[in-house]
């Protein structure tokens, strides 16, 4: 079912949801960028439709809405542990087609690999998605190659057309709100891109022997191990647990988890100081191989969804997609050495 809403109707619709939903969308933080007088587009709770940034790709993905950057697992005193209260509100997330495929990648780790994660499951079960169509590919996107340019598993699709919002609904409760509002019904087709400027080729014979290739060596010196590629990635799920105490003498504190990055120093450190993958090139290999091979070996689909945010945010201009495209010759290189 398709609807066309004007700005005012869109706000009325959002208002009608606020009692039940926390609404997350990409939002422009004016002067919120790293550099002076630059903006940052990232996720936040929104109040009105005009806060939703449609024209640019968000620097950070939606994932922080259901996988908080920092999440308290429990509070403790000497003898008691208590888990934090979590909101009973539902969550509505505005995201892109590729991002919705990324949700599936997150689900695989948090719900399928081992036992379901208590905290993720609670937020995830409360979440519904609004897919924001793309009428043109953004820089560094390669969703078509990853087969993530189109998605189905959403409650609403939305496309902004100057001052109108073109919406399709797959969710009866939303459809009913639109009908009650008597908004214009129309045959709306969600937008999606059919080609990107960047295409990637994942070799069919790819395996972990490619770690021996010399292709990784250049990243030893190029990469600065800042972790931006991981933190902006909609499919990276790693975290580290921390215990903190609220005061030096206090018996009270919390155990929390925070996002972790396989590119940042310390990720593999074990007791006694030994670390694996000291070289940044091998960290790059570890990350890339998870995104386009090792995850797939377990879950049957690629982890990477081709959003290109890693390339957008790399301060050293390292391209993830370009690295993928070197894998084919790297496989040939290691084959000749064996």
């Amino acid at each position, binding site marked *: 079912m398709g609807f066309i809403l004007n700005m005012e109707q869109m706000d009325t619709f959002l208002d009608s949801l606020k009692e039940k939903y926390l609404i997350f969308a990409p939002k422009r933080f004016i002067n919120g960028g790293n550099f002076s007088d630059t903006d940052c587009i990232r996720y936040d709770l929104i109040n009105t439709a005009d806060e939703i940034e449609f024209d640019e790709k968000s620097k950070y993905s939606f994932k922080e809405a259901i996988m908080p950057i920092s999440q308290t*697992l*429990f509070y*403790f005193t000497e003898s008691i*542990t208590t*888990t934090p209260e979590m909101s009973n509100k539902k969550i509505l997330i505005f995201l892109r087609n590729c991002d919705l495929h990324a949700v599936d990648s997150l689900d695989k*780790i*948090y719900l399928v*690999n*081992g*036992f379901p*994660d*208590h*905290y993720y499951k609670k937020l995830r079960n409360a979440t519904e998605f609004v897919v924001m169509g793309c009428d043109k590919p953004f820089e560094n996107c390669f969703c078509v190659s990853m087969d993530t340019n189109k998605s189905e598993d959403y409650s609403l699709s939305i496309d902004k057309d100057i001052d109108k919002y073109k919406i399709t609904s797959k969710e009866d409760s939303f459809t009913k709100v639109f009908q009650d509002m008597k908004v214009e019904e129309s045959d709306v087709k969600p937008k999606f891109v059919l080609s990107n400027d960047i295409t990637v080729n994942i070799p069919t014979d790819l395996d*972990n022997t490619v*770690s021996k290739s010399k292709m990784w060596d250049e990243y030893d010196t190029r990469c600065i191990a800042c972790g931006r590629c991981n933190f902006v990635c909609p499919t990276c*799920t*790693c*975290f*580290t*647990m*921390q*215990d*903190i*105490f609220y005061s030096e003498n206090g*018996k009270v*504190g919390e*155990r929390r*988890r925070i996002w*972790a990055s*396989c590119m940042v120093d310390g*990720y*593999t*450190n*074990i*007791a*006694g*100081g*030994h670390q*694996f*993958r000291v070289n940044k090139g*091998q960290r790059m290999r*570890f990350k890339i*191989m*998870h995104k386009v091979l*090792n*995850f797939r*070996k*377990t879950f049957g689909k690629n982890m990477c969804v081709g959003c290109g945010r890693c390339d957008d945010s790399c301060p050293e201009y390292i391209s993830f997609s370009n690295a993928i495209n070197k894998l084919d010759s790297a496989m040939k290189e290691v084959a000749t050495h064996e």
Partner: protein
Amino acid sequence: MNRYIPFVSEILDIIKHTEIEYTFRMAYDGEVSPGQFFEVSIPKFGEAPISVSGIGPGYIDLTIRKVGKVTNEIFEHYIGQNLKLRGPYGNGFYLEEFQNKELFIIAGGTGLSPVKGVVDYFAQNPDQAKSIKLIVGFRGPDDILFKKDMESWAKTVDVTLTLDNDPTGQYKTGFVTQYIPNLEFKNKDEVATIVVGPPMMMKFAIGELLKLGLKEEQIWMSYERRMCCGLGKCGHCRINDEYVCLSGPVYNYVDAKNLVD
């Protein structure tokens, strides 16, 4: 079920091996196999993955090396006090794999901990294996773990204890790997081996075993990686498509040989 919440376990006994390595005997009733691990924690200080070094009625042994914030704090605890535990996690050693085998265990340093439960079991049930040989190496005389256990094992297990350096002249010296070429097998097909220790030691030990003509599937090993959540979520322990905390830390070499850190 929230698997991040630890349970309370009492320290039943503390066995001191070296200045920095103690075994904490912790109250635990439940299924557990040698080679599995627990996340041991002290709120305010954090968690550390510790492999099970012994199993008995109503208890498990956790041999802990004092090397960091959490373990330093654990060493401040006494018998009768509590620690918090989560687990057991991972796949341990399946004893059935080693029954009726000529069992050879090669361990380096604290690598003896995860495999100690296997030695214990066959030392107490010597009829369940064709033979048992343990080659274990430590750095020096002050680093030797499980001294008393080794004395009692000696009745049924052929123990070779070797040190990297021995100023006292009481012990054999040399790396564990140099004892491997002289191993004698009655029937090569009935041999099973376990190799546990630092990454380099495992690599060379396995190389020596393969030189003796053993098949890859006859070699078992245990990986020490950064097990942070123990639940296949946090990612720190992953190698290739394996979450060591879920499918490991014990692997057969057939699977392990392809793992690239």
